[in-house]
């Protein structure tokens, strides 16, 4: 282990936090992993129903959301770069853009889900009960997985909001940015999951 003579405590602490964040990301990955496993099993069992159901989803909305997330992922990474370089203002702007993109994502999701709800398609609804098995499973998984993902978006936004205030108040600065770094890592996780959700949910023509 690298032993810095002068500031062993501070040094180690940041490393530890980062490792801790990564480990937490591992558990999140496996949490979604369980769902992906269920998805792949049912998909293998009901390929046609899954294909038909996925046509109900709008690829355009999905694609816009993909772009929004990818873009936000970049901006939050840039915010970290800015912070490391000591450019506080730019960092705050970049976090702001990230949050804006996250908001765009949620609004989009709101309309997407809202549309389904209007059609009477939501967990526990009458319509859902009358679907055949494959379709029912597809939509159940759709709501479950995108819902859980949206929950993670919200948690990520909260983390980024806190980072924003910490940057503003000077709690996070060019010498100590581990909170922002970990918030950004979490945000990338959200992106990472969407990278798989998008093709699996929207693109199975």
């Amino acid at each position, binding site marked *: 282990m690298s032993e810095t003579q002068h*500031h062993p405590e*501070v*040094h180690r602490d*940041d*490393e530890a936090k*980062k*490792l801790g964040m*990564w480990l937490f990301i*591992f558990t999140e*990955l*496996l949490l979604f*992993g369980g769902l*992906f*496993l269920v998805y*792949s*099993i049912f998909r*293998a*069992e009901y390929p046609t129903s899954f294909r038909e159901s996925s046509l109900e989803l709008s*690829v355009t909305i999905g*694609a816009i959301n*993909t*772009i929004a997330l*990818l*873009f936000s*992922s*970049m901006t*939050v*990474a*840039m915010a*970290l*770069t800015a912070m*490391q*370089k000591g450019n506080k203002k730019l960092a705050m702007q970049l976090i702001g853009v990230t949050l804006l993109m996250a908001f765009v994502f949620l609004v989009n999701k709101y309309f997407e889900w809202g549309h389904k709800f209007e059609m009477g398609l939501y967990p526990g609804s009458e319509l859902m009960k009358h679907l055949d098995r494959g379709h029912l499973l597809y939509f159940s998984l759709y709501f479950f997985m995108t819902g859980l993902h949206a929950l993670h978006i919200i948690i990520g936004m909260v983390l980024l909001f806190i980072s924003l205030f910490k940057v503003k108040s000077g709690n996070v600065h060019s*010498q*100590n*940015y*581990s909170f922002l*770094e970990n918030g*950004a*890592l979490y945000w*990338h996780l959200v*992106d*990472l999951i969407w*990278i*798989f959700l*998008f*093709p*699996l949910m929207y*693109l*199975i*023509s």
Partner: protein
Amino acid sequence: MANNTSHTTEYKVLGRILVLLMFMTFLTISVTSFNLGAFSVTVALLIACFKAFMVLSYFMHLKYESLLLRILVGMVFVLFAVIVLITFIDYAYR
């Protein structure tokens, strides 16, 4: 210098990665809109894996992290893949 644990990634690099990721996204959409059957899923997943790799390496700075962390991340993905494969040993032969 209390805090030089993280590598600083230049804006330019991040921008290029974003362009690449966008390109990959359009590639997936266009590939899957041709009906390639089972093949299209494979391609879509391969592209997704590539995108994930890029996000992990550059946005999440994994490329510049210690070998240990890189191995651990790799192991998590391998573990998941193995679990899925083993489950399919049951489903594929039922």
